């Protein structure tokens, strides 16, 4: 179901795009068809001109609809995803505390991390507790990852499938935005716990990512993320994440708590709690593999 406001929003996107193409100089097919479309909408298309150019106009119109419709949806989806990312990471350069609690039946285990981030694709995770993990670092530069252990003092290149703890993969903790890695598309709408939501279909930009496909539910009223399903390249549904808590950190509304459930093994789930978000300018060299453990 597409609501009236939604239709209006999409309509306005189309109108802006059509006007853009119509104003472009030069005799491009796009410009011509766009002008015809504008004229048609204004009701000023004369019968004589229509008779002469009816075939061209019809083809042009159809081409325009076919060409523009996906891009307009993509633009819409990209904007929604950008808003979602702002809730997950509202700062360009930051430091953040993350607590990961793994639940298994009646047991739970806690680990804490400090995450340093810069831009959209650089993050460094410092292992704070438990004691057996202290002194370790995980560096993530887009899809490249290294783990550093104080005992061996060696950064080791690892693949995205290697886990951090519980059901949280390295990427779940280190990665704070989707825009860099995924191409979004609005797949439809849904209602989750009484909240109207867009359903975004995210496709991985390359095969190196842990999840080739993500289905993301986003609240229509404010673009807050609600939940996400993660699929591996074989199409298998691996995890479901719930963005449970949103709160104020560093004066901005952000995701402060999420849960990740293993859909194949019931009773296994991991909580991620975020706190202490601070704007912090972090030196570039901190994100160099060879600098791990040197500060």
């Amino acid at each position, binding site marked *: 179901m597409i609501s009236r406001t939604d239709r209006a929003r999409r309509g306005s996107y189309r109108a802006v795009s059509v006007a853009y193409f119509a104003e472009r100089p030069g005799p491009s097919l796009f410009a011509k068809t766009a002008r015809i479309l504008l004229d048609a909408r204004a009701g000023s298309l004369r019968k004589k001109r229509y008779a002469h150019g009816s075939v061209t106009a019809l083809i042009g119109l159809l081409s325009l609809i076919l060409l523009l419709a996906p891009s307009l949806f993509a633009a819409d989806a990209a904007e929604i995803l950008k808003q979602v990312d702002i809730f997950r990471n509202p700062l360009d350069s930051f430091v953040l505390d993350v607590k990961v609690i793994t639940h298994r039946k009646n047991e739970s*285990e806690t680990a804490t991390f400090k995450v340093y981030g810069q831009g959209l694709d650089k993050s460094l995770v410092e292992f704070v507790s438990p004691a057996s993990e202290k002194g370790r670092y995980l560096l993530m530069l887009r899809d490249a990852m290294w783990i550093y252990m104080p005992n*061996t003092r060696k950064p080791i290149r690892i*693949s995205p499938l290697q886990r951090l703890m519980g059901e949280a993969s390295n990427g779940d903790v280190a990665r704070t935005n989707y825009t860099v890695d995924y191409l979004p598309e609005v797949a439809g709408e849904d209602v989750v716990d009484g909240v109207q939501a867009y359903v975004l279909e995210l496709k991985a930009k390359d095969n190196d990512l842990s999840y080739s496909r993500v289905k993301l539910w986003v609240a229509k009223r404010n673009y807050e993320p609600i939940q996400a399903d993660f699929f591996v390249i074989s199409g298998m549904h691996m995890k479901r994440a719930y963005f449970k808590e949103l709160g104020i950190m560093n004066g901005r509304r952000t995701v402060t708590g999420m849960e990740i459930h293993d859909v194949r093994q019931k009773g296994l789930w991991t909580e991620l709690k975020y706190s202490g978000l601070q704007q912090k300018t972090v030196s570039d060299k901190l994100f160099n593999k060879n600098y791990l453990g040197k500060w």
Partner: protein
Amino acid sequence: MLRSFAWVGIIASVMCLGVRADTPDFRLFGSVGNETHLTPGNPSSRLNPGNFLKVETVSNSIDFNLFTDIVPEDKTWKFHLKLLGFNNWNRDHTVSKLEVGELNFSVSLASWLDVEAGRSIEKWGTGYAWNPTGVVNPRKNPSDPNDRRGLYRGVDNVKADLFVHDWNIELLAVPEVDWAGKQGKRLMGAGWAVRAYRLIQGVDFSLSASGGSGLPNSQGVSVSRVVGNALELHAEAAAFQDSVRFRPTGTGWKPQTKKHLDLLLGGQYTFPRNMNLVVEYYHSGNGLDREEWRGYRDMVITAAQELPAGYPIPLLMDNLYYSVLTMARDYAFGRFYWLFHHDKLEAEVLALTNLRDGSSLIRPGLYWKIHPNWSLYWLQGELLGGASTEFGHLHVSRVSDFGVRYSF
């Protein structure tokens, strides 16, 4: 020992006097462990007939390692200390040692330049069990690649780290100091090592070189790359220009200076359900070739025949020469790891094979995390191969390690 404390004092004073910081972050962590080893002798070992070396079947080791880091909020300098100590016990004797594994002070002079002085552990290369380009690395034991007891010790060096246009260039000056010389401490010479690193199109790419006193004259390259979301591939190659070695001829040792190439090719694959496999091939141009190995074996047989006549020296010399995983040119390494039972149990199987004679070390192990800070483990090393093979020459037929470790 006193010298170590003096170092700590000097560096702490420098920190207090020379560098201002609002709230330095103080990190202290480490572990304490105990291991009991069962090492029954290898009755067919030609290097130890009748257990004349008196290899103990039971021994115990206690160890600790303590890491201290002091880093200010702005991360413009860092003090780092790794203290390690151990006590090795067997029926005949006990050895205790306290060592400074690392002690260094680094300062960031500019956003693109860091300088460090002191003792530090360097780990160059991308290989898991071997690192041909790791000319300044602590000597690695491929049967314990992760240094489970944290006993690695660094090299004394002065280092500059440059960060220029996504490149990291590391320059090391490594003084060769005779700390315990009869005429007191003296500088015997200095070696140098340099490494340039950059991530290029998702590939970790490093070029390295070394030379001077105490370090080999070498040039190397190492790469690693992740393909897809589960496979990692890595490789290293290093050319050594003037390695000095003693070549066994069958009747004696012949000194030789030679050029050689060391090569490592490997990969790591992560399976679903926390299973991981590492496989590596290693070629050492400095290892013994078939003829040299035959010569060495002949010398051992001759020396063993002289032992009953009261001449142990030749066999002791052969024992000194023998160093496992250096007696051939081609080796394979495999490691299978599985984390299971709610992340409480870790199973690991290591395999090291001499590709010339097929002799192997297979070492399954089980780690049980009984608490986030406590773990128990059992490692069982089995040696496979006949008396004439490389692993068949080892003094022990199997190694069982039972350990407990507490992290703090």
